[in-house]
């Protein structure tokens, strides 16, 4: 065997493997999704699944998706992700805050799999990407509508867990309600669950008992809007359009629109240009949207709400623009200053005027 042959053999092998690689590339890209709740919750997990279906529609045979619903944080999540990675999944979207530690642990063991984590903050592996939506922009708009429309000056707020995401939503809604109605008062009930219809219904009733005539929720079930419809008060839907559950009471809903981001990222993975990023998209990028405004909203309020949506989208207005003080009266943002993202993502305090306190 001469030198030429020696060189040719590996070259041939290389050529074969390249061919094999090309053939392999025609296999569909496998994308896995992990949800915290059931896909039928009509809230958070439902919107992620809508986006998954949009992905299937968009890519056709080029992408194969799978999902696992109602996955608990911790050992369960780690097992599901490991299983997905082992069975050849190329890309995993885990769609809840608490999956962070599990995802990073799994990502370190599977460097060739692309991981995408919604609403997370932990990025300890080079293949973990973060994405989140600026829901506080939506909450500013519904806060404005609520401030204008409440007659008892009491707004009920059903909150899930005292994490920055939820606290910033409460603050955003409150600031904008107070801006148009200085007497407005927010009552917050923490249910310590993302999805528990019976508990959320009981919370809605407790808030009504305290005089609330408009409900907001940062939990995923449709129970609060259903109760509102039942009792003839107003409510805002969460994550998806919940009008069908409460045709008269549902003023609007803040929509989670994930499909464009998912399609963009999966395309990048197919093209081989995917790399870990960290985005926080809002109304402007279309990740935060609104359900149709109910006719019960007076014409002028509707115009103001639409105007606010436009100004936030164009970047002209930031919902957290100073002067804003913390609840204890100390200054948080000076006149004209806008909130840095870091402050918002670590928010653990109420703004001035809120009653009650953020639980530990």
């Amino acid at each position: 065997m001469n030198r030429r042959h020696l060189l040719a053999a590996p070259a041939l092998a290389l050529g074969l493997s390249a061919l094999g690689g090309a053939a392999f590339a025609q296999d569909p890209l496998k994308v896995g999704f992990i949800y915290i709740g059931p896909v039928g919750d009509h809230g958070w997990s439902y919107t992620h699944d809508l986006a998954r279906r949009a992905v299937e529609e968009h890519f056709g045979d080029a992408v194969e998706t799978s999902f696992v619903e109602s996955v608990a944080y911790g050992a369960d999540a780690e097992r599901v992700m490991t299983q997905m990675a082992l069975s050849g999944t190329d890309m995993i979207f885990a769609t809840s805050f608490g999956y962070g530690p599990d995802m990073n642990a799994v990502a370190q063991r599977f460097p060739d799999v692309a991981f995408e984590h919604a609403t997370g903050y932990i990025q300890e592996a080079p293949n973990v990407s973060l994405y989140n939506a600026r829901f506080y922009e939506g909450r500013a708009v519904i806060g404005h509508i609520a401030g204008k429309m409440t007659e008892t000056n009491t707004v009920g707020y059903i909150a899930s867990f005292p994490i920055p995401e939820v606290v910033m939503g409460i603050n955003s809604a409150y600031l904008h309600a107070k801006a148009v109605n200085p007497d407005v008062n927010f009552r917050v009930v923490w249910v310590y669950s993302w999805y528990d219809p019976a508990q959320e219904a009981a919370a809605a009733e407790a808030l009504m008992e305290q005089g609330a005539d408009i409900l907001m929720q940062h939990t995923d079930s449709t129970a609060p809007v259903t109760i509102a419809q039942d009792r003839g008060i107003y409510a805002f839907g969460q994550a998806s359009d919940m009008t069908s559950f409460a045709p008269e009471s549902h003023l609007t809903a803040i929509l989670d629109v994930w499909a464009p981001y998912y399609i963009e990222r999966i395309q990048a993975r197919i093209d081989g240009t995917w790399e870990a990023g960290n985005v926080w998209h809002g109304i402007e990028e279309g990740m935060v949207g609104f359900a149709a405004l109910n006719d019960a909203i007076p014409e002028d309020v509707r115009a103001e709400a639409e105007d606010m949506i436009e100004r936030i989208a164009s970047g002209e207005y930031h919902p957290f623009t100073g002067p804003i003080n913390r609840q204890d009266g100390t200054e948080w943002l000076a006149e004209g200053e806008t909130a840095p993202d870091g402050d918002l993502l670590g928010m653990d305090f109420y703004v001035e005027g809120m009653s009650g306190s953020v639980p530990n």
Partner: protein
Amino acid sequence: MDLSSINPVVLAAALMVAATPILLAAIGELVAEKAGVLNLGVEGMMITGAVTGFAVAVMTRNPYLGMLAALCGGAAVSLIFALLTQVLMANQVASGLALTLFGLGFSALLGQGFVGIPPPRTPKMDLGFLSDLPVLGPILFRHDPMVYVSIALVAAVWYWLNHTRGGRILRAVGENHEAAHALGYRVRRVRILAIAFGGACAGLGGAYLSLIRVPQWTEGMTAGAGWIALALVVFASWRPWRALLGAYLFGGIIVLQLNLQAAGVRIPVEYLAMSPYLVTILVLVVMSSGRARKTLAAPGSLGRPFHATG
């Protein structure tokens, strides 16, 4: 603490409503366990009842037909468990867990066409002058009929277990199935009937959630109520009236802490919100230790398979 803004009358009334689904499921499970069957599938039977009850109520526009369907639905899935554990001698714990998983998935499938549809209303009872009584009226006499059905059921189960021949046979089967068998009682038949009764009650509890408590159907809407009902049976040491007390206690904690929060009372809500689940875990842990089971007066043959020989 300013508690003046909480109306105790409204609170007491809300407590009864919050407790009813877990009470219904617990009383059914109590009967099954008294017969010596540990069915961990309560959650699965509840959610099946929730969806069948909802579907039938929507199609017939009659909530009571829905309740009836929920009874049948819950009993029907419980018969799967009965087949596995009583006929095929499968492990009860594993079969029960499987039933829960099956129920959650199956109900999601059945319920697909029913999301976002309002169910027909279940009217509140008007008990004439009783409903107009001050304080007592709103607390006790202005509920939907199912609240009273659940209390009547507790009384009936208590009477039946302690004062009738059938009840004594059922308890004998649960305490010592070998002896009951030697006396000529049909252990397997008694157990299958007890399982079906448990399933029917759980189904009714589920339908209470989907037709009255929340009124809507969404996947997984029982959200752990079945597990609380299971713990409640042990908490009540297998006595019907204690189950009622326990259910109202659990319901009371849930409603009270939400109302305290809404009223702006500064309380450590995280602990109160956790408490029903902590008690549940504690009770389940205690239940799994042999010695504690004895002191709690658990039925002697609870969870043990029975196979008639000779």
